[in-house]
C-alpha cells in the first residue's frame, strides 16, 4: 500500500486550474414545497476523488446525493457528469451506483443474486456474471456466504454485500449514503480503511454523505461542509481543520476556542488583536481583517500550552484551572481566564508522569504561538 500512499499525496486536481472537473453541480436549488433543501449550490468533484459531503441532518447533503443518483430532479440549476447534463435521465440510465444507508438488500434473493442483480439488468452473459460476482464476493471476503439470504448475515456482512452490489457494475461514480452509519465503532474504523483501499484499487470516484466528521476526515480527499443547503467550505481535511473560513466551520469540525476582539493594528499580514479583557493576541496572518474591525480569534485546544509559570513569548494569559479531563492519551484542561471565559487546552501525555503537575484551582498560564490560530470575521 506504500505506492498508493504516495499517489494519494500527489493527488490534488482541484489545485490545477487546467484540470476538468468530473461532476459539476451548477447553481443547484431544490425545494420541497416551501422547504428549500438545497440553495443555489455549486460544487465540482474531480475524477478518482474521494469526496465527502459533511453536515448535520437536514443540511441537504442526502438530497444532493439523490439528485446525482436521479431520484430527485433539481428545481433549478444543472448537474453535469463528465460534461453530460443529467437532467431528465432516469436513475436506471445513469452511470452512477449508490450504496444505501439501509443497504436496501433484496430480502428474497441470496447474496449472490443481490450482487448479480445489476449485471443482469445490463444483459451480461451468464458466465461473465458468475465470474464477476465471484470476483466481487472475493473482494469483500464473503465467498462462503454466497448462498445466504440477507437476514442470515450480520450487520458488517450486510454492509459488505451492499458495497459489492454497488461496485459490481463498475460505475464511474459510487455514491455512498452514510455507508458506515449502522456499524459499531470498531468495525467502522476497519471499514473506513477498506473503503479507501477499494476506492484506490478500483480507481473510482466516491461521493460519500456523512454526518460523522471523523469519518470524513479519515477517508476523504476533500470535504464540503454544508449547512442549510449551502456550501460553507470545500477543502482538504487539513485545511478544513487548520484554516476554517468561518466560525461555523471551525465549530463544526473538532473543538475550538474562540476569542472575541478587535484588530488594534496591522503590520503587513500580521496584526495585534485586543480581547474583551484587554489581553493582546499577536497573529502572523489576520487575513482580510482591517484595523478597527471586530473579529474572532479561533484556536484549537491542542495548540494551547498550559504551564504553572509565566512562559516567555507574546501570547500568554493567566487563569485558574477550572476542570481537568484525563483521557489517557491526553489531558484536557479547562482554564478560566480573568474575564470569565473558559479556554480548553489539550496536552498530550507523552510521558507517564507529568513534570509540572497542575491541579484544580491552581493558578496557570496558557500560551500559544502567533501562527497557531486563525482570524475570522464576526
Amino acid at each position: 500500500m506504500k505506492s498508493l500512499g504516495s499517489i494519494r499525496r500527489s493527488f490534488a486536481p482541484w489545485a490545477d486550474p487546467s484540470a476538468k472537473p468530473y461532476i459539476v453541480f451548477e447553481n443547484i436549488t431544490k425545494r420541497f414545497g416551501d422547504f428549500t433543501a438545497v440553495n443555489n449550490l455549486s460544487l465540482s468533484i474531480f475524477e478518482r476523488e474521494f469526496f465527502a459531503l459533511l453536515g448535520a441532518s437536514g443540511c441537504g447533503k442526502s438530497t444532493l446525493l439523490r439528485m446525482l443518483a436521479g431520484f430527485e430532479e433539481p428545481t433549478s440549476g444543472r448537474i453535469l457528469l463528465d460534461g453530460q447534463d443529467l437532467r431528465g435521465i432516469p436513475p436506471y440510465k445513469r452511470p452512477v451506483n449508490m450504496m444505501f444507508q439501509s443497504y436496501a438488500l433484496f430480502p428474497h434473493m441470496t447474496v449472490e443474486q443481490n450482487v448479480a442483480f445489476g449485471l443482469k439488468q445490463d444483459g451480461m452473459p451468464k458466465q461473465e456474471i458468475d465470474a464477476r460476482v465471484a470476483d466481487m464476493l472475493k473482494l469483500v471476503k464473503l465467498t462462503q456466504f454466497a448462498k445466504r439470504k440477507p437476514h442470515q448475515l450480520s450487520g458488517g456482512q450486510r454492509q459488505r454485500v451492499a458495497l459489492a452490489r454497488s461496485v459490481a457494475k463498475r460505475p464511474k461514480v459510487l455514491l455512498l449514503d452514510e455507508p458506515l452509519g449502522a456499524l459499531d465503532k470498531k468495525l467502522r474504523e476497519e471499514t473506513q480503511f477498506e473503503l479507501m483501499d477499494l476506492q484506490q484499487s478500483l480507481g473510482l470516484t466516491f461521493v460519500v454523505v456523512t454526518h460523522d466528521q471523523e469519518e470524513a476526515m479519515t477517508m476523504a480527499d476533500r470535504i464540503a461542509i454544508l449547512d442549510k443547503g449551502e456550501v460553507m467550505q470545500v477543502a482538504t481535511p487539513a485545511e478544513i481543520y487548520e484554516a476554517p473560513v468561518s466560525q461555523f466551520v471551525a465549530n463544526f469540525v473538532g473543538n475550538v476556542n474562540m476569542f472575541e476582539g478587535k484588530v488594534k493594528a496591522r503590520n503587513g499580514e500580521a496584526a495585534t488583536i485586543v480581547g474583551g479583557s484587554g489581553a493582546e493576541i499577536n497573529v502572523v496572518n489576520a487575513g482580510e481583517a482591517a484595523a478597527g474591525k471586530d473579529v474572532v480569534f479561533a484556536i484549537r485546544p491542542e495548540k494551547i500550552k498550559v504551564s504553572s509559570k509565566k512562559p516567555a513569548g507574546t501570547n500568554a494569559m493567566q487563569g485558574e484551572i477550572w476542570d481537568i479531563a484525563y483521557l489517557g492519551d491526553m489531558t484536557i484542561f479547562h482554564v478560566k481566564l480573568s474575564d470569565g471565559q473558559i479556554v480548553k487546552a489539550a496536552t498530550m501525555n507523552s510521558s507517564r508522569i507529568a513534570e509540572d503537575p497542575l491541579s484544580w484551582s491552581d493558578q496557570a498560564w496558557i500560551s500559544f504561538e502567533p501562527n497557531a490560530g486563525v482570524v475570522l470575521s464576526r
Partner: protein
Amino acid sequence: MNTTWSRFNIASIVLGFAFLYLPIVLLIIFSFNASKLVTVWGGFSTKWYVSLFQNEALMDAAWVTIRVGVLSATFATILGTMAALALTRYTRFRGRVLFSGMVFAPLVMPEVITGLSLLLLFVAIGLDRGFLTVTLAHITFTMCFVAVVVQSRLVTFDRSLEEAAMDLGATPVRTFFAVTLPVILPAIVSGWMLAFTLSLDDLVIASFASGPGATTLPMKIYSQVRLGVTPEINAACTLLIAIVTVGVIAASIVNKRREVQRKLDEQAAQRG
C-alpha cells in the same frame, strides 16, 4: 405464571368452547348418522357422503362456487393490489380521499345494500344474471379486503429497495416484478385467500347477483335447508369445515416454521 386452574376458569373455558363449537360438533356427528332423521341417532354410517357425491345439484353448486371463488379472488387481488399501490404511493393525487373512501366503503356497507345496488345495476345495463354477474359482484366486494391487507404491508415496505433496483439499472416495470412483487407477495397471497374464503361463504350478495344456472353452494344449502335439513347437507358442511380447518392449520404451521427458522438464522448470523 399461575398454573393452578380455578374452577371458575375451567367452567368459563368449557362453556366458551361449548358455545362456539357444540353446534359444529353436532353437525359433524350427525353427518355420520345412519338414520334419515336428522336429530335421531341411528348408528354410524358414511352413506350420506356417498350420496352427496352422487347429488348432481349439490356438486354443480360446489363447482360453481369454486370457479366463482377462484376467478373473483384473482381479479379482486389484481385490482385490490393496484388500489393499495395507488393509495400508498401517490399520496397527493386529486380525489385521493374520495378514492380511498370508495375503495373501503364496501367493508362497512351492509351486504344487503351492496347486493341490491349491484342487482339494480345489472338490470339497468341489461346484463343477464348468471355466472358472470356473481363473479363481478364478488370481485366488487372482496377487492376492498385485498386492498386493506396489501396496503398494510406496503406501508412498511422499504422504498429504498425499489430505488436500489432502479439504481442498478432496472426499469420501473422490471423493478416492480423483480423486487416489489416478490417482497409483498405474502400479503398478496393472504389477500387472495381472504377474498376466496369470503366468496366461498357469501350468501347475501350471491342471492342478489345470481341467476338461473349459477347457484352457489351456500345458496343451494340455504334453499335445501328451507325444505328440511337432510344428513347430506350435514356431510357437505362437514367437508367444507374439514377443508377450511386443514387449510388454516397448514398455513399456520408453515408460517410458524418459517418464523422459527428465520429467528434461528438471525441468531446464527449475529454470533458470526
